[in-house]
């Protein structure tokens, strides 16, 4: 007797959880982007920094989160219209990757391309990076995330997606180790 080929043996409950995580991540990214950009537009420090003791998020970072959140939502599995057209998702992925790559170029070449204060004027010079410029780690993260968005249907996308969190994870680990090895509390 001949046997039919097996369909993938997936846990439907786990699949549902993963789809919810995707939807939740989109909501978080859009909410984060809108909140911080509103803070920049209205000059409200609390919205820029979300928490009272946190540093302000850069406008480019918030904009990249907003675009990435919308693009991810458009690229959801059952959104056939967007998946067929592919135009907006590609544009969104390209914007996120461009923000990351151009900022990386600025860091590597020490050349100001003028993108740091394109959205809002930022005169805060209390950071190591130039005013308005997102951190090096954030730029690496957005470059990887933009590439993952552009190549979402390929096998490499999930590796890029996992690598997106690495700069943030490294940053968090460094912060933790610094706090461990110092008596005082350092700024994040």
């Amino acid at each position: 007797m001949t046997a039919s080929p097996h369909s993938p043996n997936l846990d439907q409950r786990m699949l549902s959880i993963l789809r919810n995580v995707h939807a939740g991540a989109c909501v978080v990214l859009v909410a984060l982007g809108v909140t911080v950009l509103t803070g920049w537009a209205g000059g409200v420090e609390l919205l820029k920094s979300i928490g009272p003791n946190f540093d302000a998020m850069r406008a480019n970072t918030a904009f990249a989160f907003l675009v990435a959140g919308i693009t991810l939502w458009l690229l959801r599995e059952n959104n056939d219209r967007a998946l067929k057209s592919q135009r907006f998702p590609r544009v969104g992925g390209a914007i996120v990757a461009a923000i990351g790559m151009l900022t990386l170029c600025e860091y590597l070449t020490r050349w100001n391309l003028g993108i740091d204060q394109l959205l809002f004027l930022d005169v805060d010079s209390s950071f190591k990076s130039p005013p308005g410029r997102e951190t090096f780690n954030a730029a690496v993260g957005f470059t990887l995330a933009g590439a993952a968005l552009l190549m979402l249907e390929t096998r490499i996308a999930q590796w890029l997606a996992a690598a997106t969190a690495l700069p943030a994870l490294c940053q968090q680990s460094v912060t933790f180790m610094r706090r461990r090895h110092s008596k005082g509390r350092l700024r994040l």
Partner: protein
Amino acid sequence: MAPHTIAGMFALSAGLLCARPARGAMAWLASAGPQGLLLRQLLPSGIAILLATAFIAEFGHKGGVYGAAHRAALELSTAIVLLSALVLWAAAVLARLDAARAAVTRAYEKTAAYLKASTEASVDGIITADERGMIETVNPAATRHFGFTAQEMIGRNVSMLMPEQNRSRLDRYLQHYFSTGARGTSGGRREVRGLRKDGAQFPLELAVSETRVDGHRLFTGIVRDISSGVGFSCPASWQRAMKSACCSG
């Protein structure tokens, strides 16, 4: 990087990973098999153990319970013990799953052996076909009835086993059945004409049942050559035939 930027990066990474949950490494995570179970249990547990030991050691050190050297030793030894326990637990889970799989395999092999013996010993022809009518399996009795070899039948349409005038009727029936779901042949018994390899026609009794395998319809047809006058609907003649076979033997 501000804490909410770090949180945003984790959200972005998670969103990207979960965008295609049934593909690549995420399919392993969502798998109902042992790899999915291990990934879902081991990965978060391992990370949680390392983070918890670091925070607890830090907490005790800051509280003045022990010094820096003891903190490092405590952190390392706790992590080793807990991770070893985790690996042992994973091995126990794998052993249980393997035992369950072996039991299922044994039961499957037993059922398959029974089924094979039954179909091969059957005096009735048993033919399975997919929803397009393409033959998937045949038993030896079916090959004897129709005069074809199994290789000649498998992969071809069941219409090869019926006279020309009945073929269009089968196509119409299948189209009607798939569009309306109304059963005609399926589930019932009827007398039809069969076509042997040498072109000879013969009467046969046909019973068709339907089942679903991996979301696809699979039809099983049982055919009995009634050219000798023995059919499903003739229990008395069947008994007579059996009796005469026994007596003559």
